[in-house]
């Protein structure tokens, strides 16, 4: 048996490594187990490399508009392997960064596959050899992976998950994206911008179904205007692989079927938690719908075993996992004044073009909750910076409780909105009302002025519309 730790974290994604750092800051003796690469999906196969790809497609998009900005160039083209290579280098740099952070905080990194092995024990297998470690607290942070639907099983060649889509061996001239959540839409946006003929199929009646209806509708219109094909209320019945292409049989809600032949398919139909082969059942850790069940503090109910991040359920967001990691580390160390995470204060961002970002309740949900609301809207066309940037399309929307002035939700679509949403998130966290937001001075000329105007608009007092 090897060393005894205060905290042993299984999985080094954003939830796991942040938990390890916080625990180390609080004086705990910490180890972290990783079976693949430090940083988990987020750094290696998710958030970060996709943002690198999307940066390339954004530049490509701007290059199509060179003339508009006063440039001329001919015969420019993109080099897919170079784009992918840059994305991989970004991921590598950040993974190295996590390795540095582990070293800095004297966190022992254990390579291998971990499994619970009795009370306070974890067995880590590497190259067929198992080593046991004892720990007072074990934090499960093994994350999640793409869900696979029957008939749509990814094969890694013609039917991709996010994983293959990040390192495409070929540029698909035509692409079917199944699922219009954040992952599906981001890949659709990337490949479409670079010239793929992209079709998005969504089983629900709108794209980005977790977003505000109005934002969904604006996004669908923007995608359609760009030339993307959006098929909502449609399912993929069957995928038939032929040499070099895939034929999909699509079925609409009213029973009509149609066929579509594409080079590649990306399956983005949700994710499932990595709950297998961890020894959860023997340990008595409760699993529901492929996720570990936790209380508000990340406790599993089994003393000394905690769970955080995607493994512990939605929303499947790195920043949610990071906060859970901090909460669990502080609970373990007995820090006073730790607060549970309020999911209504977690923002969500989708980095398609145009970008979408939101926090809190949608207008429909606020009404359904019986709230008397007032809604503010401010369009990008009324903002000087947006026009100067050449990005005059988009909307910032606020939903306030009409009686108390509570900011129930905020929803936006347009250039750089993922960098703006935190303004409203801070407001929600500090429980600012429309009065404090209205009294806040936003710098001119910035896109952030739209946050102000959308607040004023809720009281019919927007200045630039």
């Amino acid at each position, binding site marked *: 048996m090897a060393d005894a730790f205060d905290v042993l974290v299984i999985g080094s994604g954003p939830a796991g490594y942040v938990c390890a750092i916080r625990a180390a800051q609080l004086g705990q003796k910490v180890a972290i187990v990783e079976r693949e690469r430090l940083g988990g999906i987020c750094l290696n196969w998710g958030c970060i490399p996709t943002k690198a790809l999307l940066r390339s497609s954004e530049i490509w998009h701007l290059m199509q508009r060179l003339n508009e900005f006063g440039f001329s160039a001919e015969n420019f083209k993109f080099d897919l392997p170079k784009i992918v290579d840059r994305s991989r280098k970004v991921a590598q740099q950040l993974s190295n960064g996590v390795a540095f952070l582990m070293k800095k905080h004297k966190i022992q990194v254990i390579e291998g596959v971990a499994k619970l092995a009795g009370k306070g024990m974890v067995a880590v297998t590497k190259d067929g050899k198992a080593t046991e470690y004892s720990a007072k607290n074990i934090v499960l942070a093994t994350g999640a992976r793409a869900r696979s639907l029957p008939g749509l099983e990814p094969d890694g060649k013609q039917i991709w998950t996010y994983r293959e889509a990040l390192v495409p061996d070929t540029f698909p001239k035509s692409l079917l994206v199944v699922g219009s959540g954040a992952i599906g839409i981001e890949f659709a946006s990337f490949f479409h911008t670079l010239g793929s003929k992209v079709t998005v199929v969504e089983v629900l009646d709108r794209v980005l179904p977790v977003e505000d209806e109005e934002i969904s509708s604006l996004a669908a219109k923007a995608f359609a205007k760009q030339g993307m094909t959006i098929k909502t209320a449609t399912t993929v019945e069957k995928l038939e692989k032929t040499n070099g292409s895939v034929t999909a049989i699509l079925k609409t809600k009213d029973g009509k079927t149609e066929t579509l032949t594409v080079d590649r398919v990306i399956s983005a139909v949700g994710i499932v938690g990595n709950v297998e082969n961890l020894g959860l059942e023997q340990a008595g850790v409760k699993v529901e719908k492929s996720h570990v069940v936790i209380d508000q503090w990340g406790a599993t109910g089994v003393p000394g075993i905690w769970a955080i991040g995607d493994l512990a359920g939605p929303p499947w967001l790195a920043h949610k996992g990071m906060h859970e990691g901090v909460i669990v580390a502080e609970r373990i160390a007995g820090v006073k*004044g730790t607060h549970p995470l309020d999911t209504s204060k977690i923002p969500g961002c989708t980095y398609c073009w145009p970008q979408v970002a939101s926090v809190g309740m949608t207008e429909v949900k606020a009404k359904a909750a019986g709230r008397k609301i*007032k809604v503010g809207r401010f369009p990008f066309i009324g903002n000087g910076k947006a026009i100067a940037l050449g990005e005059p399309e988009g909307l910032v929307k606020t939903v306030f409780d009409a*009686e108390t002035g*509570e900011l129930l939700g905020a929803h936006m679509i347009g250039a750089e909105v993922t960098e703006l949403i935190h303004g409203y998130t801070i407001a929600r966290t500090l*429980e600012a009302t429309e009065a404090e937001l209205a009294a806040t001075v936003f710098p001119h000329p910035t896109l952030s002025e739209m946050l102000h105007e959308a607040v004023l608009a809720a009281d019919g007092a927007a200045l630039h519309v």
Partner: protein
Amino acid sequence: MTTNILMPALSPTMEEGTLTKWLVKEGDEVHSGDILAEIETDKATMEFEAVDEGRIGKILVPEGTEGVKVNQPIAVLLAEGEEAGAAPDIEAAMASIKTAVDEEAKTPAKQPTGSPQKEVPDARGESGGGVKPDKAPPETGGDGQRVFASPLARRIAAQKGIDLSSLSGSGPRGRIVKADVEGARVSATPAQPRAAAAPSPAPAGTSLAGIAPLPDARAYFKPDDYEEIPHDSMRKAIARRLTSAKTLMPHFYLTVDCQIDELLAARARLNAASPKEGGYKLSVNDFVVKAAAGALIRVPEVNASWTDNAILRHRHADIGVAVALDFGLITPIVFHAEEKGLAAISAEVKALAERARTKKLKPAEFEGGSFAISNLGMYGIRDFTAVINPPHAAILAVGAGEQRAVVRNGKVEIATVMTVTMSCDHRVIDGATGARFLQAFKLFVEDPAALLL
């Protein structure tokens, strides 16, 4: 020129009062010092004197009006030669009363009046369902300490009439957040489903975050089975003050038996020697007051008041003596009791009690003090505990003097024994300190001659 006569603040804590009786009528000439009206507060009825001279032009608040706010105009005083009809600001004064009354009805929470420019209709406020962001509750609690609360919590508190300073915050660094205020709101609503049929008075201000409210007693009884006696202002004051005292002050209790045979003998001698003219009749309680005064000077740690940043140690023994009234209870104060003889104390307590019964006490006579005595001996109560009446740090509960078997020098003997229990505010008084006080007190009541030391 005309002058508005305003509702006076007859004590530092007075917020409103009842205008019981006008002693002048419209058209009467008044001079400085004339008594204009009788005003009743939660503790006493007081006479309100004229400060200026002139003629009463108009009485704005009729007698018998309850809940008249301090500084509200109650009458208009005309200067010499002016006509009532010519007074231009009477209507304005009337309007301001109506506004004040309306405002009060609309907003239960006490709020500062907005500045004039904020009164201009505000597009945002109007379209926002009457939400006026400038009407935030004060940022300080009653003791002047800043209350940390989120803007949303402040607004909900203002809307629901919740006193933020009565809540404890669950947010970062104890900040009061929405959930705390909503918790308070829930707890201020009677939770008993059976109460639905009955009127539901919300015991606002008596609930603490995280503590379940007390049920509305009406829920347990049929409406015909009881008589409902609405709270008068004294009952409300007792409820408010003693709930705060018992909730916020950590009470502990010390009990001692005092043998008072010598005291009774001394009392009998002194009363027998009372002169015919200007005589006195000393009670046991007068000795108790005198003994407590002596003990307070000997153990000054008990003669003290708690504040958030300091203990106030008082230089004089100002002893409140609880007086039972058929409509409640009041504690008039014998000031500088340590300087007074038994006869003076006796006369003073009698006069104060009489004036209390006829509601003639001035606030200065019952507000404050440094210690209190509650004596239920005349009802045969042997021993009880009392609730400390702030700003005091202790109260002495005095039981009946009764003959009991005591053991002296190994023999059972009969002695007259009086049991006293002191309630102490542990923030101010520690156990040993309280015990030293009771030692001194016991010495003075068992051997009154020791008061001469």
